[in-house]
């Protein structure tokens, strides 16, 4: 981020993503009238027909709201990044990740197939990982990236299981098909497992307590990424999923209580912690948690007020929060710090930023005539409409909103209008226009929609509410002035409480910091969890991977013995009777020779004896081949045995004795295992011999050897004609072995000479 770099820009790579995002925004914008007038727009392309996976896309009210937010804020963020990271050596990579993310996120919100949705879901996790870890030189960036990926990825595994269960219960993976039969899902025995698994995915993605800790850490990403992914869009994927499946899953006690309680806890917990932060970006991160909690809370209910509040707050929050993140980026860029304690008096040097920040913050704080005010009124109406516990829910919303107001003051009022708390690293200067466009436009929209709520009522809110409630015309109207009613009174209470909190925030922060440091930390808990995992992994590796050859072999032969013995025991009809008909002396003699040689090799301490005994065994086997009509095999066997003995003898001249004292080698444990494997192998051979022999292949070779291959020695014909390629492979193996042996011997020579 050098000054020279800012002037240079990023060329075509900087402009392309902006153009793409803008084109997508224009496209989705042009769909507004079709969606609001004619209902969902659908496109479908077969993808994996065998698994009933279609690339089916639906654009209904809910999808459209998200798609517009993603592509619209995407355009502004791309424009912003092009200046914020101007001349960054890896800007092309950054732009690619960001564009990929945007496309994945759009895919997620328009998918009409559960599995396609899941693929897009994981793509957003991956691109989020890459973007958080964009500053990969810093260890904390890498840690945060990995943490975000592991938390959301673990949730995604649960989600996948939940989606598959849901698909099999409903008999289709089409989302529109599933939400059309919500009663089937709700009454199914697997409803609770499905709900738990899907909510695990949604809660990790949308950072609900107790999975919230990854989101503040994700602020390691460059600020435009935080604005885009970790505030306006990606973290809302979980909320989107809950809204999408609302018709199929909501309306039960489990749904209501889980979402209401966790949403409320997250909202209050996060807004308290937000006030504790001094880093502006972290403060915003916690207010994002608060917003996600509130959105979850509203989805718990299915009253029209709650859902209208959901849709409105979704839009309000994305507008002001993205604007504020971008403002923080401007402040960071202009002053070199984001520390709320230092910053102050920036309004003179950065007037445009200050005004944008002020407008966005007023919307966030819920002052009239901004959209945030309408959102807040609806929140209270929605909270009061939660039939079971209106006081509790409204109380939670009241506390969270008041804290929000205080945080808005800390983030957007104090740095600009109050005196500075200390010396700033850089002389404050205004950001270039592409970085101002985002905050200004987004903040202005919050004001325009506030004054003219009709602009979004029919176009976005109504279709959005309709698609969640699956009915038309259920949405409540947005009013700036709805008369003196309970929500208005609550609003006034919020202002009083919020302003008091802001006035006291310095002292409150000190108290909160003390509490926070005393309380157990999720983040350190996470570290301990990972350390535990690593300890288990290394313990298990030490256990399995001893690095001692004999132990590996012991495991292999042990496993071989157990599986073979078990199979024999379970499958065999019984031990076949041993019978030795028509045996002549020569047969007994050969077998005796082989057995004697074998035992001698196994036990001897002398290498000469071992070589001789090996020779005896080899010749014994060759004799068997001779007797039973295999002269070719016997010749080869004799040849190879001779070579083996010669080779061993040559090498042995250079090697030490088997044992210095030529003792017998006796290891009882190994002998038991060896005997076990030997017995099992004998049993298997006997079983094989008891089965009828399938001679089709032999018959074929016998009949065709002469007429087709013109050979009278059938074994030779098989080797050089029918299975010529195998023989070629065999020759290649021997050649490779020879070459490798030669290479080894040559390096030995060099080493000896050295």
């Amino acid at each position, binding site marked *: 981020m050098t000054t020279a770099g800012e002037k240079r820009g990023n060329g075509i790579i900087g402009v392309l993503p902006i153009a793409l995002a803008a084109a997508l925004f224009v496209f989705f914008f042009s769909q507004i009238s079709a969606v609001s007038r004619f209902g969902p727009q659908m496109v479908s392309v077969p993808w994996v027909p065998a698994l009933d996976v279609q690339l089916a896309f639906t654009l209904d009210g809910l999808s459209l709201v998200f798609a517009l937010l993603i592509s619209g804020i995407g355009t502004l963020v791309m424009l912003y990044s092009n200046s914020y990271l101007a001349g960054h050596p890896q800007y092309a990579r950054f732009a690619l990740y960001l564009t990929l993310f945007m496309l994945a996120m759009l895919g997620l919100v328009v998918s009409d197939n559960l599995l396609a949705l899941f693929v897009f879901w994981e793509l957003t996790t991956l691109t989020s990982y890459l973007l958080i870890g964009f500053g990969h030189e810093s260890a904390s960036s890498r840690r945060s990236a990995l943490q975000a990926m592991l938390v959301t990825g673990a949730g995604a595994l649960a989600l996948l299981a939940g989606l598959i269960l849901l698909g099999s219960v409903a008999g289709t993976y089409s989302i529109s098909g599933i939400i059309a039969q919500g009663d089937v899902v709700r009454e199914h025995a697997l409803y609770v497992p499905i709900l738990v698994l899907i909510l695990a995915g949604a809660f990790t993605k949308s950072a609900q307590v107790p999975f919230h800790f990854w989101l503040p850490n994700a602020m390691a990403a460059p600020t435009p990424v935080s604005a885009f992914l970790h505030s306006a869009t990606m973290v809302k994927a979980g909320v989107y999923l809950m809204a999408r499946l609302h018709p199929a899953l909501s309306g039960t006690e489990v749904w209501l209580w889980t979402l209401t309680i966790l949403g409320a806890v997250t909202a209050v917990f996060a807004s308290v912690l937000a006030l504790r932060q001094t880093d502006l970006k972290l403060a915003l991160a916690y207010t994002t948690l608060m917003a996600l909690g509130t959105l979850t809370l509203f989805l718990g209910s299915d009253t029209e007020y709650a859902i209208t509040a959901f849709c409105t707050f979704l839009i309000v929050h994305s507008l002001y929060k993205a604007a504020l993140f971008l403002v923080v980026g401007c402040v960071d860029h202009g002053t070199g710090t984001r520390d709320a304690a230092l910053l102050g008096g920036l309004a003179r040097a950065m007037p445009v930023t200050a005004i944008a920040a002020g407008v966005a913050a007023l919307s966030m704080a819920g002052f009239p005539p901004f959209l945030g005010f309408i959102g807040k009124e609806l929140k209270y109406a929605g909270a009061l409409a939660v039939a079971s516990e209106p006081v509790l829910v409204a109380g939670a919303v009241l506390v969270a909103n008041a804290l929000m107001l205080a945080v808005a003051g800390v983030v957007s009022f104090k740095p600009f209008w109050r005196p500075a708390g200390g010396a700033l690293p850089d002389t404050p200067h205004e950001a270039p226009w592409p970085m101002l466009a985002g905050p200004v436009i987004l903040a202005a929209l919050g004001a325009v929609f506030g004054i003219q709520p009709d602009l979004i009522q029919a176009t976005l809110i109504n279709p959005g509410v309709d698609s969640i409630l699956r009915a038309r015309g259920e949405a409540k109207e947005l009013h700036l002035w709805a008369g003196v009613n309970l929500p208005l009174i609550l609003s006034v209470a919020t202002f009083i409480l919020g302003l008091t909190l802001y006035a006291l925030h310095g002292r409150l922060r000190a108290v909160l910091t003390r509490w926070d440091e005393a309380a157990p930390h999720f983040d350190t808990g996470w570290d301990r969890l990972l350390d535990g995992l690593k300890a288990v992994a290394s313990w298990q590796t030490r256990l399995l991977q001893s*690095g001692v050859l*004999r132990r590996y072999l012991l495991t292999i032969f042990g496993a071989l013995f157990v599986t073979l013995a078990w199979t024999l025991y379970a499958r065999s009809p019984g031990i076949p009777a041993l019978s030795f008909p028509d045996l002549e002396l020569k047969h007994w003699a050969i077998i005796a020779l082989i057995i004697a040689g074998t035992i001698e090799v196994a036990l001897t301490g002398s290498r000469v004896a071992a070589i001789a005994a090996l020779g005896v065994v080899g010749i014994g086997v060759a004799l068997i081949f001779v007797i039973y009509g295999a002269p070719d095999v016997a010749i080869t066997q004799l040849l190879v045995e001779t*070579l083996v003995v010669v080779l061993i003898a040559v090498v042995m001249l250079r*090697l030490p004795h*088997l044992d210095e004292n030529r003792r017998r080698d006796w290891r009882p444990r190994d002998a038991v295992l060896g005997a076990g494997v*030997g017995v099992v192998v004998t049993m298997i051979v006997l079983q094989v011999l008891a089965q009828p022999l399938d001679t089709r292949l032999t018959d074929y070779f016998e009949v065709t050897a002469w007429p087709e291959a013109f050979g009278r020695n059938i074994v030779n014909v*098989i*080797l050089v004609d029918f299975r010529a390629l195998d023989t070629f492979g065999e020759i290649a193996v021997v050649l490779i072995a020879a070459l490798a042996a030669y290479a080894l011997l040559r390096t*030995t020579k060099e*080493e000896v000479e050295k």
Partner: protein
Amino acid sequence: METLIAIAIGILTAAAVYLMLARNVLRFIFGLLLLSNAANLLIFTAGRLTQGAPPLIPKGADIPPEGVANALPQALVLTAIVIGFGLFAFALVLIFRAYTGLGTLDSDDMRVAEPKEQGR
């Protein structure tokens, strides 16, 4: 005879396993040789034994006479013998090379790739 050979195969395998579990890698390679002999015998025997009738087609005939030995396992065993020899030769050179490089034939002491951890 099949039964007797089955027992011999079992004993060969038992000795091979026993030898391959030894610390001395030369014993390991003896085990390898016995194991390949056992495998060859097993393939050969599984195709049934026919005494004194090699699978040849006499002059003037198109097919071999009734009751010749099964040609297929013989062809397989031939290939197996040669490949087994290639494996043995390479393993032997490898052992030789390991000895000149590491100065030991004890597989427990060959810990270059997986060194012993501290305190174990």
